[in-house]
Each structure stands twice: as C-alpha cells, then as structure tokens.
C-alpha cells in the first residue's frame, strides 16, 4: 500500500526540501510506515523518535486527521493511500 508522509517545515532540510515522502509498505499500521521511513531516511526518523523508538514527547503524528496517541499509537491502522502528518506540538517558550 502507498503512504504519504507529510514532513514539517523544520525537518525539510533532511528531505532535500520535500514536504512529502511517498512510502510503499506491506502492512497497514503507522508503525510499519515509520519502519520504512527509518530505512529510507534514518536522520528524519531520529528527529521524530528517540533511541528507544518512542515518539518524542513534543512531536505529534496524525493519521487521517487523528492523533495516533489516542488511536492506537504505532499500531494505528492505515487505509490505502493514507496520509501521515508529522507536526511539532504547541509547546515551548
């Protein structure tokens, strides 16, 4: 299945300026998509996840508009042609 990952502006210097990354994944969870992203662009993956493969606390991921923290985490299912949106949270000072 095809998945589109939407990359936030601050991380686009890790994708040669591209705002989206297209991924082909065999299974239908967002975790599978991120495993593929880790293989393709490990530096981008490292900015989204810690060494313990945990989503960084101030990064949010949305699948079909829903925050995955409330929809199953990395086990959140994805439909074909799903869009995975990565956004920094509202925090800081």
């Amino acid at each position, binding site marked *: 299945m095809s998945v589109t990952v939407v990359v936030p502006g601050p991380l686009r210097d890790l994708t040669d300026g591209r705002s989206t990354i297209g991924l082909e994944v065999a299974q239908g969870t967002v975790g599978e998509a991120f495993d593929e992203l880790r293989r393709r662009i490990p*530096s981008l993956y490292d*900015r989204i996840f810690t060494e313990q493969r945990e989503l960084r606390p101030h990064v949010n991921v949305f699948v079909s508009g829903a925050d995955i923290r409330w929809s199953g985490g990395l086990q959140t299912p994805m439909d074909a042609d799903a869009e995975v949106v990565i956004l920094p949270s509202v925090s800081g000072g």
Partner: protein
Amino acid sequence: MPESAVGSGAGSGDVLVMVGTTKGAFLFTSGPERGEWQVDGPHFPGEEVYALALDQRGSGPVLWAAPGNAFFGTTLRRSRDLGASWSDKDERPVKFPEDSGLSLKHIWQIAPGPAADPDVMYLGVEPSCLFESRDGGTSWGPVQGFLEHEHRERWTPGNGGLCLHTIVQHPDDREKMLVAFSTGGVYSTEDGGASWRPRNVGVRTEFLPDKYPEFGQCVHKVVNHPSRPERLFLQNHWGLYRSDDWAESWQDIANGVPSDFGFCMAMHPHDPDTVYIVPMESDMFRCCPEAKMRVYRTRDGGASWEPMTEGLPQEDAYETVLRDALTTDTGAPAGVYFGTRSGKLYASADDGDSWMLVQDGLPPVVCVKAGVLA
C-alpha cells in the same frame, strides 16, 4: 551595540567568545585588546545551545555546537571556518544504545581531549553520561563503565535535568578524569573510564537528611588549572570547596562571600590560585545578592574572595548566571566573560578588575566559551 560581522573574519590573535542561548548561538570576536566586539548570529536560530567548544589542537580551529530543541532532539555540529558554515544537520552521531533504556535529552558539555591526541573528544550529556570519540568527533559512544555504573538508578535530576555538565581531565595522566553532575556529585576514574567512584567527602547536601552522603550532591561546576591539576575548586548547590588531593577530600572555602550558593565557576588561565564565581542569593531566590551584580575573585586559592564591581550594575540587578555561563580566555591579562539569563553579555579584559556590557537583549544565556585564536 556591536557591529554585525561574520565569525570567519577573525584571525590569529583575535579573541572569540561563543555564547549559547535558549534561542541560538552568537559568536563575538575582537582584536587582542578586547575593547570592541563584533557579533555574528544567531546560529541555529530557535534552538537551545547548551554546549559550545573551541578546539585548536589540530591544523585549524574547529568550533563545536550542540543545538537542539524540545521537539526534535539534540544534534552535534562543527564548523571549520569559524561559523561561516556548519556540518550537516542530518548527522546524529550521539545516541544511547537501544538496550540502555536511555534517550539523549541534551548535550551539556563538549570537551576536547588531550592536546597530544586531537582525535579524542568527550561529551557530557543528559541523562548523565560521558561519551567519547576517538576519531575527531565523527563517531561517539558512551563510556561503558560510567553508563553501567551501579549507582545510576539512584542518581536523580535537579531542576536542570540529570545532566553531566563538567569534565575535568588530568593533563599528566590520561587514565585519570573527573566528572560532575546534578545530582550525583563528583565521580572520578583512574583507569581510563573502566571504573568510577564518588569523590564527595566533605561536600554537603542541604536537600537530603544525610548532609554528607557518599553521592547524591548537586555539584554545579568544578575547575582546575593544568599547572596544578590535583587542586580542584568546586561550586556546589550551597557550598564552595577546594580539594588539594584530586577530590579525595574537600574543604570549605566560602570565606567572605555574600552567599555560597551559585552555579558557575571559572579558572584563571595562568594562575592556579585565581578563580572566579558569581554568587546567587539562595536556592529559593536565584539572583545576585542584594541585587548587586558582582563577580567574586580569589587570588589565594579560596582563602579570601573580593568583589569585582567596576562596570557592573550595583542596584536592581536581579540577574542569574548559570553553570556554564562564566569563562576565561587565554589572554594576558585574562579576559573574563559571563552571560545572564536576562540576555546580557559582560566582558573584562583585565583579569576581572573592570567590566563592560558587550551586548544586551540576547535570549537567555546558558553557555559562554572563549579562546584566543592560534
């Protein structure tokens, strides 16, 4: 206000002051007289820069920086052209092993290693650990003896996090090194990092029922001078100390200071008896005592301290100077520099006798490093 200039315009004999803030890094340069400054920055705008370093052991100066933010983590960047350009943002060489259960939060200290081996470097990081590179900073790994220390589970974070912020090397014995972190205290190795033991005898903890535990102290900074490396000076979370035996024991040297609470401490580049501090009123009011901005200097190894006030505000100065925000250069007389949480950078070109405000309006300053370019 300094004029804007690119850092790469500086050359041999010029002085470079690197300022890390919560919103980026700024590079200040001056000629040897250190009277007029030019500023370049912000580098890494919007990112916290807790650690900076100038490494002049190789064929040319290398600047190191550890920018990061709460969103996407911390990176380690280097510049071989005095800040005109930095290494790629996609380099993320500093990571804990997955099986450690730990994740990098901040890099608090970047320490070039022995002069004779420019490929060796060290990092102090949060959560508390010492990292080492043996290839000039290209690849890094945790010092295993420290990572796996039996006390690790009982180290607890202070307000700034569980940060290893101080790395003290012994210039004559590469097997010996000392680190300090909050909280945990001082630990040292004498076998090149294979084993570490706490070295906190005599250092008190006001925040624990046992005032003199084996470890658990909230040490804020430790300095020494390469000409007399066994003598160490320590600014504690309450307490000012000296050791004359490579941290086997510590003696109170809070003689004539308005408070022995403080964060920062800096060594004079040429005199092993001269040390600088900036006392804070208390842990509950972390501002200059009596709202007077005073740097205190000892010239007798801590037997006495004198306030340096010329050029510094002596009223309404509700300022805080953090643990890495005071430093010296290698000039003669010494340049002394500090930055405040209110975004001011002060400089002295005469061993601390007099001061000038170099810049106001910076973001909160968390780190100041300085050197004379070779």
